[in-house]
């Protein structure tokens, strides 16, 4: 194999040489080369080793099916060398080789192939049992392609979205014709082509039809100059999804296209002939030889035997001849001699045609790494090689052109029904999915002028569906006047090694064995033999496997049907699928303040919140304790802007709340708040919050941070379903909220507001609207953390100003920001539950100790009927407070640790923490009702299996009568001084 003189339409740029290494040896190619074409130009024909038997392999298709020519470039695994563009400085190594390509120590497996029949791993190595893991390890070491470098840097791959009227997949003649026809009618078109340039077979299958170069040039010019067409080369469609959503993959990104209509013009894939040793390096598809010649100016062999069963094979022979290859013979298994311009030209050149002959086997050269000749036999009347006529023809390469398989995977995925057309021995679309069309050879149309017309026909049908222009639609598909595919290009041989699947090293006998063992439907055969399950997904093997199965079962191809085709058409790098790793998080308007204050952040639903504020020289628990003590003794401030904030107003606003929450709201006074619990229809607690009545028909309420979106959505559904006359607005993002809590919160807030904060004027659970820090605010007196507290809601854009004002006002009182962890501890000391932490997807309000919030005498609320049905049943569990002895110093239990009784699981810890206020570990646990009464003892199994004893205690743990959150300043100070005095 050598580089040829300049070819008329070669893709390489000879002014740009590229240096690279393969197996440690230095090579040089040109820009525009693929890795394989550059190696071939340097006379490297041994490109890889096969998967199972480690047989030497070379070029097969040069069209993305060459699974035995995978290389590792140090960064990417299993790079397909036959189609990957060469780049300067590449350092390439073959995969699946032990030693070197020329001396692969694993290749001795080939000699034992007789003992490794298809499915051997289902049968062998199972006895004795102890030996199996050793065999398994040995097999795993031998199998697999490439090695993953776990230290490889993460590749961030962008995703692009694109929209068009007509997406044409495949830039061959029919695809180009379809794209141009659609664009001319005014449609916006994307034309995706897998190769580096448009043209498809026009760029390599030339033979006697030298005029196709002009056709190609004209199309390229017109398409390139058309404003309506976006051409994407080096791009393949990996899958087609519902409603014409197509993923296009190129070297750097995935493009998701929503197309009005899709025209699939993906053409056909040339199929190998099957004969003994048909896998030797030097034996390739006719189209592979043509690609090497015309695109990369590589002479693929010096002396060739061409196995031709169609017009394309004769064209390939002519192309080889013009590339300086000596054609030893054309072997044609058909009865009728070929009639075509190419055949005439070859006859003029006196190239011998062996009609009605087959290649029975190929002969390896002395090193066993290439082909040195082929054994040819005449065919008998029974389609069998006549061994008496066998003779050997010397050659160093074989070009096989015996037929095609349609590249119809995308059509299958889109839901097309296929029919086997005996006239052309090909599956063609019988019924297509809506707005998906097929054109060209994938549609069974073969002559060039017909393919161009078929493209226009498909475009016209797409345009008619889309209502663009007034297209003329031809009804009929054009059936070729000849059969391009041989019905059975397979020759049996007693010594086997006649490969059907080059990915998985499957030979003809493997299929007969599988059928004999009962795996005789196409789906079973596939799974048992693994045909088509290798990296090329059966692109060169499925049709021949089906032919063998059809013959073994004496069925027609139409009766057999094909296996299912699923995405992806070619492998897609995981980095493409991963995309940019886009995980959006929401930040409150105060985020910058938290960061400046040293906040350690945590995820809370879709939000990022401060877990605690780190302080120099203090560890996590010290920081949290300090925050807790600041709230208990002075004043703390926390950003609670992540709470769901919803406003509902209108004549039916109260009715809505009455129906969706368990409590009563018709008797809630204007200017007051009430705790609210929401259930689902089965009576399970799903959310809670605080409802404030701003006026008779106007309510403002909060939901949990994680529940905000779902609660808002469900309320909208109930309003729509019950046809309530009220409006609902989700203010979660529009409003910010800050909670000022602690005995000195009133004193701090007083400096910043004109509201009367006197205990009588603004009592516990009150809600007021007024000015805080000069901003119109809603202030709710809440007690979640168990101290005097004010939750101040302002428009989000005023949040920073409010925060800064309160921090300044609280400076003298030693105000401290506190995070989620401190808040969780503070509320735990009050035994205030967190929905979703202290409850789960099955917890009823009774189990959660929320009986007091249920107004069962209301006419209706969501979940009420289910609670009524359950009321006669015994409670299975109940949430209770527990504490460890104050002197306990061992490891504390964690959330979700189990409560064990008599060896069985009796409950679980839902919340637990060390309480600095109480100087002991406290928590909440779901317990059997008989244990959920104060002063019971129970066992908790902690990490490592140690059992520790805990005792249930009455809750709240802290300030059981709730005096502190209700308190007014004067009372507190009085009590404090009296305590100090005593």
């Amino acid at each position, binding site marked *: 194999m050598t580089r040829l003189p300049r070819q008329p339409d070669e893709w390489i740029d000879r002014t740009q040489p590229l240096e690279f290494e393969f197996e440690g040896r230095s090579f040089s190619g040109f820009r525009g080369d693929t890795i394989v074409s550059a190696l071939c130009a340097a006379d490297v024909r041994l490109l890889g080793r096969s998967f199972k038997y480690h047989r030497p392999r070379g070029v097969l298709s040069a069209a993305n099916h060459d699974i035995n020519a995978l290389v590792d470039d140090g960064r990417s695994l299993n790079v397909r060398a036959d189609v990957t563009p060469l780049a300067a400085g590449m350092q390439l190594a073959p995969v699946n080789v032990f030693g070197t390509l020329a001396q692969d120590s694993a290749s001795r497996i080939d000699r034992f192939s007789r003992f490794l029949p298809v499915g051997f791993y289902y049968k062998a190595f199972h006895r004795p049992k102890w030996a199996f893991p050793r065999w398994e390890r040995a097999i795993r070491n031998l199998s697999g392609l490439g090695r993953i470098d776990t230290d490889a840097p993460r590749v961030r791959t962008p995703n692009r979205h694109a929209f068009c009227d007509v997406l044409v997949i495949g830039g061959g003649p029919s695809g180009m014709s379809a794209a141009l026809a659609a664009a001319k009618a005014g449609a916006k078109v994307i034309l995706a082509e897998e190769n580096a340039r448009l043209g498809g077979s026009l760029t390599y299958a030339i033979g006697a039809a030298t005029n196709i170069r002009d056709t190609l040039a004209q199309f390229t010019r017109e398409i390139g100059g058309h404003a309506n067409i976006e051409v994407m080369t080096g791009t393949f469609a990996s899958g087609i999804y519902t*409603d014409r*959503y197509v993923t296009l993959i190129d070297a750097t990104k995935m493009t998701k296209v929503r197309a009005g209509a899709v025209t699939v013009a993906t053409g056909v894939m040339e199929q190998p002939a099957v004969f003994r040793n048909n896998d030797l390096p030097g034996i390739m598809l006719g189209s592979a030889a043509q690609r090497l010649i015309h695109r990369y100016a590589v002479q693929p062999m010096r002396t060739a035997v061409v196995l031709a069963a169609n017009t394309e094979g004769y064209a390939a022979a002519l192309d080889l001849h013009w590339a300086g290859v000596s054609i030893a013979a054309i072997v044609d298994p058909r009865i009728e001699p070929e009639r075509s311009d190419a055949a005439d030209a070859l006859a003029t050149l006196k190239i011998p045609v062996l009609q009605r002959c087959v290649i029975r086997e190929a002969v390896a050269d002395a090193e066993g790494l290439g082909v040195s000749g082929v054994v040819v036999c005449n065919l008998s009347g029974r389609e069998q090689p006549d061994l008496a006529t066998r003779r050997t023809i010397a050659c160093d390469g074989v070009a096989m052109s015996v037929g095609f398989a349609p590249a119809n995977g995308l059509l299958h995925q889109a839901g097309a029904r296929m029919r086997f057309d005996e006239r052309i021995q090909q599956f063609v679309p019988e019924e297509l999915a809506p707005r998906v069309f097929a054109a060209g050879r994938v549609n069974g149309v073969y002559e060039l002028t017909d393919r161009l017309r078929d493209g226009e026909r498909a475009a016209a049908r797409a345009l008619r569906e889309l209502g663009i222009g007034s297209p003329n639609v031809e009804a009929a598909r054009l059936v070729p006047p000849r059969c391009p595919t041989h019905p059975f290009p397979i020759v049996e041989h007693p010594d086997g090694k006649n490969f059907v699947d080059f990915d998985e090293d499957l030979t003809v006998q493997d299929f007969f064995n599988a059928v004999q063992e009962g795996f005789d439907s196409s789906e079973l055969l596939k799974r048992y033999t693994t045909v088509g399950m290798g990296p090329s997904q059966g692109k060169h093997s499925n049709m021949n496997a089906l032919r063998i199965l059809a013959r073994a079962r004496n069925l027609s191809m139409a009766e057999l049907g094909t296996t299912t085709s699923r995405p992806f058409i070619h492998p897609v790098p995981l980095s493409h699928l991963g995309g940019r790793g886009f995980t959006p998080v929401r930040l409150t308007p105060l985020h910058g303040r938290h960061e400046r204050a040293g906040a350690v952040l945590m995820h809370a639903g879709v939000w990022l919140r401060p877990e605690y504020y780190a302080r120099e020289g203090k560890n996590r628990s010290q920081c949290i304790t300090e925050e807790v003590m600041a709230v208990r003794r002075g004043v703390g401030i926390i950003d609670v802007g992540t709470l769901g904030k919803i406003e509902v107003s209108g004549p039916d606003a109260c009715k809505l709340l009455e129906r969706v929450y368990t409590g009563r709201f018709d008797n809630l006074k204007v200017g007051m708040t009430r705790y609210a619990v929401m259930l689902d229809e089965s009576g399970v607690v799903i959310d809670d919050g605080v409802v404030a009545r701003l006026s008779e028909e106007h309510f403002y309420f909060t939901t949990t941070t994680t529940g905000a979106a779902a609660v808002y*959505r469900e309320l*909208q*559904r109930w309003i729509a379903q019950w046809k309530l006359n009220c409006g609902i607005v989700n203010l979660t993002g529009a409003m910010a909220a800050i909670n000022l809590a602690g005995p000195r919160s009133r004193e701090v807030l007083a400096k910043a507001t004109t509201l009367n904060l006197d205990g009588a004027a603004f009592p516990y659970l009150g809600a007021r609207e007024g000015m805080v820090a000069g901003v119109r605010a809603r202030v709710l007196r809440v007690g979640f953390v168990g101290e005097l507290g004010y939750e101040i809601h302002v428009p989000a854009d005023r949040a920073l100003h409010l925060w800064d004002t309160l921090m300044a006002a609280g400076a003298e009182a030693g105000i401290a920001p506190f995070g989620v962890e401190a808040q969780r501890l503070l509320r735990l000391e009050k035994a205030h539950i967190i929905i979703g932490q202290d409850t789960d997807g099955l917890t009823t309000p009774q189990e959660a100790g929320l009986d007091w919030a249920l107004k069962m005498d209301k006419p209706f609320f969501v979940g009420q009927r289910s609670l009524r*049905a359950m009321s006669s049943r015994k409670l299975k569990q109940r949430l209770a407070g527990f504490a460890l002895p104050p002197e306990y110093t061992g490891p504390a239990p964690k959330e979700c640790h189990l409560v064990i009784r008599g060896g069985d699981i009796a409950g679980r810890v839902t919340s637990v923490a060390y309480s600095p206020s109480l100087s002991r570990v406290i928590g909440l646990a779901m317990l059997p009702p008989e244990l959920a009464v104060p002063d019971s003892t129970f066992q908790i199994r902690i990490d490592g299996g140690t059992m520790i004893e805990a005792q249930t205690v009455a809750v709240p743990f802290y300030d059981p009568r709730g005096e502190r959150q209700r308190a007014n300043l004067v009372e507190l100070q009085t009590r404090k001084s009296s305590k100090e005095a005593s």
Partner: protein
Amino acid sequence: MKLMPCPVNGLRPVSEFVYGGEYRVMPDPDQASDVQWADYVFNRTSLPGIKREWWYHQPSGTWFIAERDVQADVVHRTYLPGEGPAT
């Protein structure tokens, strides 16, 4: 990705929507037996055929009913609650 016809916003990608389950009519809680109520709350049919389903267009906050062939995954029509036939 599927396209879903929202009765207000027209054809939009299904990623903008939230599926809201089968459309069912709540029995009268005061009249229904425990068994009837449990059937309403817990049981769903998984038979193929055309079903009425709740769908929610998230960006616009629109709840609507879709009549969908759940076997072929084809939406036949969509309408706002109360605007369709016999809802």
